[in-house]
């Protein structure tokens, strides 16, 4: 749930902060279903190294550190691999990667 959109108002114009607009709204049943689907994909493919509920000992990247603006970087790393991580583009569909992103963002430090 993210309702902390802040507004800067002046001269009759209000601007929502860019980061808040990028934030994920998890309140709808559809969003919840997507997060649950992402959790299943994560547990099947990612948990091995990134840990249950995204908690690991520091051997791999702490995915909770990803912010809303990191989506393109995330997609690139997952699809093409990074460091020890193999590429997943031949295994996971774009929809599954999107579901995993939703799951990760639901547990992020910075919502």
């Amino acid at each position, binding site marked *: 749930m993210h309702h902390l959109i802040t507004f800067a108002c002046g001269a009759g114009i209000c601007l929502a902060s860019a980061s808040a607009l990028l934030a994920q709204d998890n309140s709808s049943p559809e969003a919840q279903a997507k997060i649950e689907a992402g959790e299943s994909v994560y547990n099947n493919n990612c*948990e*091995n190294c990134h840990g*249950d509920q995204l*908690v*690991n000992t*520091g*051997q791999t990247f702490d995915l909770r550190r990803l912010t809303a603006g990191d989506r393109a970087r995330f997609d690139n790393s997952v699809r093409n691999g990074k460091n*020890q991580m*193999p590429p997943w583009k031949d295994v996971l569909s774009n929809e599954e990667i999107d579901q995993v992103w939703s799951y990760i963002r639901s547990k992020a430090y910075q919502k």
Partner: protein
Amino acid sequence: MKRSAFAGAMILALSGVSSLAQTSQDLKAAGGTTGDVLVYGMGYSGQRFSPLTQINKENVSRLVPVWAYSLADLQGGEGFPLVKDGVIYVTTHNATVAVDALSGKQIWRVIHEYPPETLRVVCCGIVNRGAAIYEGMIIRALMDDRLVALDSATGKEIWTAKSPDPVTHANGYAMTGAPLIVDGVVIIGVAGAEYSHRGLVEGYDAKTGKHLWRLYTIPAEGEPGSETWEGDSHQTGGGSSWVTGTYDAELDLVYWGIGNPAPWNPRARKGDNLFTNSIFAIRPKTGERVWYYQATPQDPFDYDAVQTPVIATINVDGNPRKIVMQANRSGFLYVLDAKDGRLIAANAYGKVNWADGVDRETGRPLTTDVFKGALEGRTVTVWPSVSGVTNWQHMSFSPQTGMLYINTIHVGMTYQAPEPPKLAPGKPSGAGTVKRTTVTEDPNVRGFLKAVDPLTGKSKWETPYRSPNFSSTMVTASNLVFTGVMTGEFQALDADTGKILWSFQTPSGIVGQPITWERNGKQYVTVMSGIGGVYAQRAGDPNLENLPTGVSLWTFALFDK
């Protein structure tokens, strides 16, 4: 494969070493030798007991590091060190090294390459648990289902062998365990029950790498046991074999633990799911399965029975009897007759609620409503969790005290199996097929090191740890138990009381396997440090967040004034 330039300079210096062959007879005697450590588990029995006594309760406080060696690796350091003629051989997932045992200087180092895609089917730690030594060769498995034999003096490759079809990472197979060599046969298992494979154990000729036999752990259509699987579920039935077994020369039997059924979700594989979660007794020359004992039929909870069966002769009802002992992941400690697998004892050695006990006549667990609920898809609270009361970490057995020294896990879980997935070889079939959350009684006591009576399961003492130890234990004739802690402490405990007598902070968490050996009249203790493996990577233990990583090899001895 790359070799360091340094290796060449050492070849001449060590050429005399390679001429000292490690024959089958040497390996059979390995449990009693103290200068060399030639067999995984410190001897074929897997007892991890040493007769050495120079380091004892009175002087262990003077134990200091002699040297440390960097393996230049950020994955888990689970390897079992071998020692032969003053040289230590250790492995990581992508390296094999030879190190001078007294100085810690590198003699040779070989880097092994494997396709990055391999790691898609390595569920439980990017690791290797060790090598075997035979007639001047260091023989180990590689992640991508190959065995390689290296010249122990130079690291030069002598032979390499790929496991025949269908063993590929695409079909859900990987190799992380250490081989066991018996009478010239290299015996190795596979990981991958979380990826819908059909498990197996196999044998290779140690001299040439020729494939000799394969024993599938899951029956083919129409074979005995296939009737214990629903529909065609046996085709992707799991039954991995990722932890090294033991050998009894008198009975000529290898004992090997077999892993969980696939998928974890049990709802589409009704039946006993033979021969998952079993202990096998195997004829090493042929791969014939002489007997089996299934611990957990139709397992919903990933309770592999891969824990190394430890061989000993103990008094049962006043008579000496040769037995195998397994501290099963399910929470029950099994004692079986080594000759025929007959059940002698099975008692809980940790918190268990999925079964009330084990029927002495049938050998089957007396399951509770928790187990039934899990099969029906209800949400249940289960002890132990999927991590088990133990996992792969090895216990030790002291013939002097008659006790097992077991690093145990004290964590439960909520569990629910939703609609089961449709599987295909190589497709994930583990954690994503069920829903779980972690349950603890005390979040800061998630494990104990216990001294356990094998016949009753009762503890003589229990030493608590904030997170469970995934290091193996080793016990000496001076009644010291050595183990490592996830946060890096290498420790010696009093085998009689569980009191921590000595502790040394290594640079990373310890998930390795301590050994002890002697040279020139001095006793040494060696262990790998380097956090990683199944619990560190997967369990989500908040007590272990953001630990320092990096594998290193440490050797300790008493400080000389």
